């Protein structure tokens, strides 16, 4: 059975042949895998078979062979691609605006610093995600902002 999954935000397609009694067989990227689970505790399992690894896990978060992975079914709310903000630079978390480095009409390049904010006693710089022209600056220096709010808008379709 073909199945789509979202792995660390990236969609992958697999073909599941069987999945029962702690044994799963599937095809991924042209290779067949047959893997068995030996559970050792509420958060700990050993995988054996095609690949062997120690896994620490909760429902969606797995530590597999030393790498953190989040695997979810597609369309789950948390698997939305959050990097595409359509020219809106969002505050990553609640904090205070320390410096606004751009004004409306400024031409910026991808990676240019736009705003410096402070959160958790540390400074963070909000950078332009694309080349473009600043179309809106929503906050001034010294203002407190919540997490996930629009700080600066960038018009990316500017013709030279």
């Amino acid at each position, binding site marked *: 059975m073909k199945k789509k999954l979202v792995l660390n935000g990236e969609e992958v397609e*697999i073909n599941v042949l069987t*999945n029962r009694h702690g044994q799963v067989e599937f095809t991924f990227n042209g290779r067949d895998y047959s893997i068995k*689970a030996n559970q050792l505790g509420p958060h700990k399992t050993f995988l054996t078979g095609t690949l062997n690894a120690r896994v620490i896990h*909760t429902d969606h*978060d*797995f530590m597999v062979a030393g790498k953190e992975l989040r695997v979810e079914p597609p369309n789950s709310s948390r698997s939305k691609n959050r990097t595409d903000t359509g020219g809106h630079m969002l505050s990553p978390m609640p904090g205070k605006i320390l410096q606004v480095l751009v004004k409306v009409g400024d031409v910026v390049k991808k990676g240019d610093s736009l705003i410096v904010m402070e959160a*958790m006693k*540390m400074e963070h710089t909000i950078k332009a995600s694309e080349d473009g022209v600043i179309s809106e600056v929503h906050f001034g220096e010294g203002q407190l902002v919540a997490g996930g709010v629009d700080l600066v808008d960038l018009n990316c379709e500017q013709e030279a």
Partner: protein
Amino acid sequence: MKSEVLKKIDKILIANRGEISLRVMKTCKEMGIKSVSLFTEIERDYPHANLADECISLGEGPLSETYLNQDRIIEIAKKCGASAIHPGYGFLSENSVFANKVTSAGLIFIGPRPDSMELMGDKKTSKVEMGKISIPLIPGYHGDNQEDDFLKNEADKMGYPVLIKATAGGGGKGMRAVWKEEEFIEALNSAKREAKNAFGNDIVLIEKFIQNPRHIEVQVMSDTHGNHLHFFERECSIQRRHQKVVEETPSIALTDKIRNDITQTAVNIASGINYEGAGTVEFIMDAAGEFFFLEMNTRLQVEHPITEMVTGCDLVQLQILAAAGLPLPMKQSEIKQSGHAIEVRVYSEDPDNNFMPAIGTISHVGTPELNNVRLDSGYVDGNEVTINFDPMLAKLICWGVDRETAISKTLHSLDEVPFFGIKTNRDYLKRIVGSSPFREGDTFTHFVETHAELLKNVELSDEQKALGIATFLLNSKSTKASGETIDSSWQRLQGFRNI
């Protein structure tokens, strides 16, 4: 010894939070001393708010009304019958006004005398004082004579390379490294021009330029009977934005001779200022092994556990003994370094996105399982990480018979503490400790900037992805080809979803 301590100190109020509150609590329990912890309302579910003999709420509000509210903390200590206050690190730990208030209230402050804190708290005066007792300082000229030839003569005396720095400077403006005598005047003029333009002031200072320096510090402990002991060095060269990230002891850069000199220098400082309690003398060391005094921290350090791992001494216990006025229960010759210990600091931040701080709920911390591995964590499963406090979640401390073993145990143990639910620097720490320059001991204070490329995240391999997919499938209700829903075997097990 125990009853002697208890006569003086039978109950300690810990004026701190998180992992260091728990750390002090642990020693209190071992010594049969009652502990009192403080917490704020949003920390009610945190371990430090639950595990002391008495846990007292500071309510809500900014730090100035909670952990930094000196009078309130002293009042609580008196009310609950504490005989001493342990300030931990940060917060009020190096505040001489607080230490004075504690003593005036008839309580014992577990830390140095206020005058030592004041002396060492000022970077400038402390250096002047250290110069008086012949402690090596970074050679430099900080005076008023700004004539070209005079400054060049000063630079020639120190030996090249030297650093020219604008006294009003910042952000690298008006700063020049000069490698050869004949380049000095040109660099001086250029630095002065830049400083004049940037700050309207072209006064400069000249300092010897230390290339690829290592940060080496020495743990000292003094009692009130004039005993000043050292507990060897720690190397803390791996830093990011002046925040220590990885610490280790012993430092492989120290020969027996340098170790002897640097530890003796630290002891001379402690005895020179008649110090009491735990302190750390920080030095900067160049490639030739020449070291210079930077500053002294008059408190217990975050990275103290690695010293405990290699010496077998409980530094908090020694702090308490010294504060009770008892002599330290060992001689210098009895303190030995055995094996190698590494500490890595787990921060809630995203190294792959400009080290942006991360917040969220920790669904699962994990437990390190190898021998001689310590996880000093302020958080347990289900705790929320907020923006209100320091982003350091935990310290993982691994001891091994030698450095190579300590490195491999650190890499292994980091995989056992996923801190699920929140972005952390866990994988980044593995990249540092597992990198070949770190393994070779080629460490210096600009390590992470210099090796930024090497420390970048690597893409997951197909096999790693396949293991993730397998885990997900095995862990979820799935459907057979016929469409019939079947339970995975994992779900028969109780306690799987315990978040």
